[in-house]
């Protein structure tokens, strides 16, 4: 890959990259990761801008780095077309959804005491907890069948429930245990 150029794509390609991620933004209920299969189809199969391995590595890298997981979208854009590519994908995936979220939050805040909004919040609260548990479960996929990794998951749950210390310490434990090959 060319490392010096600001982008390796033409203007039209860059615009279509941006437009595609803008579309995905409004479909990304549950987070940008839910549209990852479509991103893979577009970037790897259709446009052939990056390889399958590059795609998977981009997601894993952003998950390991600090910050929101949506940043994997910027890594994808970076791998496609350098800094401008990263801007195109990240602004594309963020702009429509943030605008909508802000508008919806205000709409909801104004009507917080109405029956409809109270029912909406109360009804969705248990689903939110269930979704969180499901996310945790899906994230344990690589740990199934590896008792050391499962022990690390359980240890993390216990420590986190019993303390308000920053989770960064547990992350450091996980990182070291992994780097030394203990898990």
């Amino acid at each position, binding site marked *: 890959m060319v490392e010096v150029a600001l982008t390796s794509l033409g203007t039209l390609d860059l615009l279509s990259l941006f437009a595609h991620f803008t579309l995905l933004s409004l*479909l*990304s*209920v*549950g*987070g*940008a990761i*839910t549209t990852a299969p479509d991103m893979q189809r577009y970037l790897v199969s259709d446009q052939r801008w990056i390889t399958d391995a590059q795609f998977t*590595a981009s997601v*894993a890298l952003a*998950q*390991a780095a*600090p*910050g*929101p997981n949506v940043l994997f979208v*910027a890594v994808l854009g*970076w*791998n496609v077309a350098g800094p401008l590519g990263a801007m195109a994908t990240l602004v594309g995936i963020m702009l*429509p*959804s*943030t605008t*909508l*979220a*802000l508008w*919806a939050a205000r709409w909801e805040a104004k009507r917080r005491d109405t*029956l*409809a909004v*109270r*029912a909406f*919040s*109360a*009804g*969705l*609260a*248990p*689903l*939110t907890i*269930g*979704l969180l*548990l*499901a996310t*945790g479960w899906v*994230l344990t996929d*690589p*740990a199934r069948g590896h008792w050391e*990794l499962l022990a690390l*998951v359980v240890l*993390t*749950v216990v420590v*986190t429930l019993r303390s*308000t210390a*920053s*989770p960064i310490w547990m*992350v450091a*434990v*996980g*990182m070291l245990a*992994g*780097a030394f*090959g203990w*898990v």
Partner: protein
Amino acid sequence: MPTPPDDGGLEPVAPPAPAGRRAPRSTRELYLVFNRLALQGFGGVLAVAQIELVERTGWLTREEFVEALSLAQVLPGPNVCNLALITGDRFFGWRGAVAALAGMMLVPLLIVLALAAAYVHWAHLPAVSGALRGMGAVAAGLVIATALKLARALGANPLGLPLCMAFGGLTFVAIALARLPLVWVVCGLGAVAITTAWWRLR
């Protein structure tokens, strides 16, 4: 006499906080706290967001956090980014929303792009892939613990605990085990739960 320049912060005035509640004093504080929580969020920010916003700063109660998160989850877009927008907007309007989102994303973006540029050089090292695996297991544990902590907020839910556990459990089974699309679950089960809550609250 011209008005003296302020201390260089982005913020003119903090809005009045509800009595007895803690609130960010400025958009800068909002930015800094969201930056701090994002930088601690390896493998996802939600666990740290709960600790920082509910347990440390006390800007949101556990119930408010669940309410904001519920909204953030049904809206398109990254949940934690929506959560930052909603929280920021609540205290300082759109300037707060911008400050919180910028705090959440700016520095992490630079870090992740630097890592992406460097990754090609050390991807083959076993220690690196091992570290990623270990951090992944911790990330999973953090999300599970967050769910268990927030589940306590359901005690105040008008649905009552048994129904809450039923809806939460069904959601878990539908998403984690049956791997149904989220949209179906939210539209189907969500509609039933909201209707039940509406009927109980009436």
